[in-house]
């Protein structure tokens, strides 16, 4: 059912209130991507470090709604340790999942599965997507 409770899951609120890996680093090894959604004011910066084809660091900073800010934190916790290929694959399917398109349901999304509820709220797909889009750009820029 389309209820607010389906959108504002506990995991999302936990990351919103106590974000992980928050704050940017001044380290040239990190690749930085900044995405702004001017229509709603969401503003997210993602930094990624890749070593030996593995994501070894993700940092984020920004302002926006709870869905946007929490998703940056969630993604940072999931991605560290993944191979670049897995990270990109998961990002592509996460973006499909929140946009209510067919996606690979066998993926272990960990905490990011909480954003499944977003697909019932088309107006919020952007909020759940921009941190992940920035992440994808940052990791591609790093390769």
């Amino acid at each position, binding site marked *: 059912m389309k209820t607010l*409770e389906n959108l*504002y899951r*506990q995991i999302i*609120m936990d990351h919103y209130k106590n974000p992980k890996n928050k704050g940017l680093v001044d380290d040239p090894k990190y690749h930085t991507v900044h995405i702004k959604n001017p229509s709603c*004011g969401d503003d997210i910066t993602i930094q990624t470090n890749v070593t030996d084809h593995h994501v070894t660091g993700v940092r984020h900073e920004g302002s*926006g*709604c*709870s*869905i946007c800010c929490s998703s940056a934190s969630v993604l940072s916790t999931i991605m560290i340790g993944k191979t670049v290929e897995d990270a990109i694959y998961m990002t592509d399917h996460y973006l499909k999942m929140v946009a209510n398109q067919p996606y690979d349901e066998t993926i272990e999304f960990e905490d990011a599965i909480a954003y499944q509820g977003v697909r019932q709220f088309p107006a*919020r797909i952007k909020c759940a997507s921009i941190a992940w889009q920035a992440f994808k750009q940052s990791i591609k820029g790093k390769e």
Partner: protein
Amino acid sequence: MFENVKDDFPVLINNPLIYLDTAASSLTPKTVIDKMNEYYMHYPVNVHRGVYELSHRATQMYEHARTVIAKYINASFDEVIFTRGATSALNLVALSYGMDYLNAGDEIIVSELEHHSQLLPWQNVAIKKKCRLVYVPLDDEGRITVDNFLSVLTSKTKVVALTYVSNVMGYITPLKPIIDAAHKVGAIVSVDAAQAAPHLPIDVRDLNADFLAFSGHKMFGPTGIGVLYGSRHLLAKMTPIELGGDMNDNVEKDHAVWKDAPYKFEAGTPPIAEALGLCEAVQYIKKLDITAIANHEKALAKYTINALKKIPGITLYNPTTETGIIAFNIDGVHPHDAVTAFDQDHIALRAGHHCAQLVIKWLKVPATLRASFYVYNTFDECDQFVQSVIKARDFFLSVGF
């Protein structure tokens, strides 16, 4: 007041929608839709071109729309230019008058209340022509006052570009004394009336504005049409910014001669159905009576503000608004989160910076919620809206905001 008015709006029939986003776009009454259909059904041909009967009819209807709108704002026929909307109209003023008549060192007065469509064209002129962009200091409530305006008016002021009604705060700018003072130093005044035309009687002669712009879609009209009023003597000396068909009298290999205003500013095929639609929208406003409309919205806003004031956890940014616009937030809740809760209750309102980032920065918030009222809103809807605010606040508190 306006008991059966909802029946005039097809989108409201058998729809639980509570529409509180008129400041973005108003809903469209059936008469306006019918008028545009009439054009496409019965004389869907170009204007000013064909010498056949049908084209004559389309041209007559298009020019009739201009006559009705000119009369409505107390302008002359040739002072009413049809544009794509307020944005195009305001850009026309800056790109033509601003670029041709401003020089380095001249001052342009704007305010932090301006919509980007009024601010950015003049910011651009200021950069390109090396003029100084001067901001009227807003008072404690975020208003433009006559005294604050006078404090920045100088002999170097050449243009005053201000909004008539703020699209975020709903305040009415005291334009008459401002325009009088601006004229005394030889400045011209360009008024953004996008939020005024739907809610206030507009009299360009009484106001003595040099330019005044508004959009159809905020005043029951269609999208894609707006009006620029320009005083005749200024339009006469201005050059068009778009060149093309219809706007010229004579074309030679190395030069061309423009038509007189308003036609020299209407290059290409205009939005014909939309002009007829806007004309019909003006007739609809006249039927309902603009003063009655304004009083109705003000009453709804006042009633809602009084109720919201009693709710802990709500911040109101413009409790003294004189129009139907309320800017507020639920404390600790980003407006985009809040708006989803209202959407669940079929209440449409706006969250964001409303294309007026400077006033949002002035308020020192990331964004605001905005509720705006029009004739189709009722006191009962205000009650439902207030209940929805309380429900939303409680929900977000409960999940840990």
